[in-house]
């Protein structure tokens, strides 16, 4: 079995199982905790509408906070949109998903994807430098923050190297790229990368709680 066979076979299966089981376990584990009913008289019903609004309410900072936080939001959007485009709209990735799901979708030209990947890596580096140099973020940060950064950035780097074919041996390079992606999937349920799910749960929760009261959060 070559390294590529391993990466495409058992390593992938293992990573996907950990990814799905881990995420479900963590989400259900929190959901299973006590749900206390709120007996206070709601100011307005249909709190769920406030929950849905809550999902998008913090997509951009309120005016008084913009001067301080717009830069961070832009970096955040670049990273997240970069991830989205590179993962789902790079031709070889679309083919990979087509293999699994049985259907595909249009891809973006390779040149554009390469540019997006480079921009995303630059944004990731800026985010890391900010984390280290800003006293607040440095104090809040722990192993999870840095390791999550590492496992997110690594597939971009190995992916670019594969696309540019600069490995000493293409197939081994591709295998390394795949393995870095599986590392991301395996680590995903255990750390802050779970915010991909928590952001929805948390924003909905706060949005609906405060819609019930009438204030905002």
């Amino acid at each position, binding site marked *: 079995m070559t390294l590529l066979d391993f990466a495409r076979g058992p390593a992938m299966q293992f990573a996907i199982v950990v990814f799905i089981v881990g995420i479900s376990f963590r989400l259900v584990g929190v959901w299973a905790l006590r749900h*206390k009913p709120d007996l206070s008289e709601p100011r307005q019903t249909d709190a769920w509408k406030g929950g849905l609004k809550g999902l998008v309410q913090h997509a951009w900072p309120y*005016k008084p906070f913009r001067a301080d936080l717009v830069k961070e939001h832009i970096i955040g959007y670049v990273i997240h949109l970069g991830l989205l485009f590179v993962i789902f709209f790079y031709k070889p990735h679309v083919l990979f998903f087509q293999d699994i799901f049985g259907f595909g979708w249009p891809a973006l030209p390779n040149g554009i994807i390469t540019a997006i990947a480079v921009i995303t890596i630059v944004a990731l580096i800026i985010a890391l430098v900010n984390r280290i140099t800003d006293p607040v973020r440095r104090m809040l940060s722990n192993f999870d923050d840095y390791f999550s950064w590492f496992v997110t950035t690594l597939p971009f780097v190995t992916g670019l190297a594969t696309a540019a074919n600069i490995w000493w041996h293409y197939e081994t390079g591709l295998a390394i790229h795949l393995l870095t992606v599986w590392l991301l999937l395996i680590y995903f349920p255990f750390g802050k990368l779970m915010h991909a799910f928590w952001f929805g749960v948390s924003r909905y929760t706060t949005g609906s709680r405060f819609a019930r*009261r009438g204030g905002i959060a």
Partner: protein
Amino acid sequence: MSDATTNEIPVDLESKRLSVTRPDVRFDKQGEMSDDERVQKAMQHFAKDFGYVAATYMEACVHCGACAHACPFYEANPDPKLTPIWKLEPFKQAYKREAGPLSFFYKTLNLKSKVTVEQLEEWQELLYDTCTMCGRCTLVCPMSIDIATLVGMARHGMFQAGLVPHELYTVTEKAEREGSPLGATPKVFADRVEWMEDEHEVDMPLDQDQADVLVLMSSIEIQKYPESMAATGKILNQMGKSWTFHTEGYEATNFGMLSGNTQWQKDMTMKIISTAEKIGAELVILPECGHAYQALRWQGANMLGRPLPFKVQHISEFLAEAVESGAIRLNKVNKTVAFHDPCQVSRRGGATPAPRKVLDALGVDVREPESSGNLNFCCGGGGGVITIHRADSLRYKIMGNKLAQLDGTGAEMMVTSCSNCRQNFDDSGEKLHWDKQMNSLLELVADNLVEDTKS
């Protein structure tokens, strides 16, 4: 600290800010417990409330630090440890180790170390002195984490561990024992009602057997702004309401809630609920007090374990309804006004439009600072912070920022609807040589009430 010690500390009624007199020796640890016991109790009582809401918030933080940019304490002193979410660090640590879905890994592999008593002692200042639970941090959180609620829960653990700041513990214990945190015992209250009746020639029913409306007061008003009582009486009489004050349930403040003692919070809330039920009240009116609104309007039913059998309104909501329905008419006030929103009534209470309707009826020209309404910048005195002497210097700095915002509107008159905010403006305003003063919305309405002799 024994109760004997707390009993000896008098309430300082001379100061602009009501609290116990500055203690010569601080007792910031209560009860006799081993260090291990303190940690265990803190964690146990923190985790006791652990529902999925709190767990979601604990899981969701991405350590972005945005919350620092919304915190009045951090703005006044940009020390990283004043970052709102950092104030919960030991509890986050404990959640991950003890309660979260991955606690097994964290504990077995010792990925999160055990919380120590030294850590908790260090965090006392962060959880009590430097957080008013104003909730402004939630506005900037990309995950919408309700940090203020988590701080309230962390205080439950801190109280049971006997780690409450000296003054806050003292006033809370006084409130549980005497019925008021600041010496406004039932007898003092009755005397003051009588005094105000004479002084303002307003009938103020006390201890009626039956009434439609039960009116509460906060000890700050009873002790410091008693005109509020007369103002409320004047308006209710004008409307022809059947109402009463009651010596068995009059104190609106809830220091059980602020300090983190859930049982005492319940005791304090139950006094009000039982009295309202006893006299058959349909409505309980809360005074100009921010946290009282949280305690009864939003937490009261949860303390009782069933929906409240009466309606609860903050006085500003009651006044808004009265002017809207035409039940009272007001003389026009020809002034420009800036309104300071009490966080617990506006952002965290949802009654933000009410004072604006009242100001509109007064015909004033309202000038809002950029951060007003639900985005309001806290005065720095809520959450029990104003009682703590060692928190004074930072509180004055916050007020400096607040005054700059209000003065920036160019308004002639400053108005709020929270007597705790008001006493903070009085106290800090004096320190900072402010050339204005904070006024009460309620008193402004009473002073400009069109008195109809027919009713």
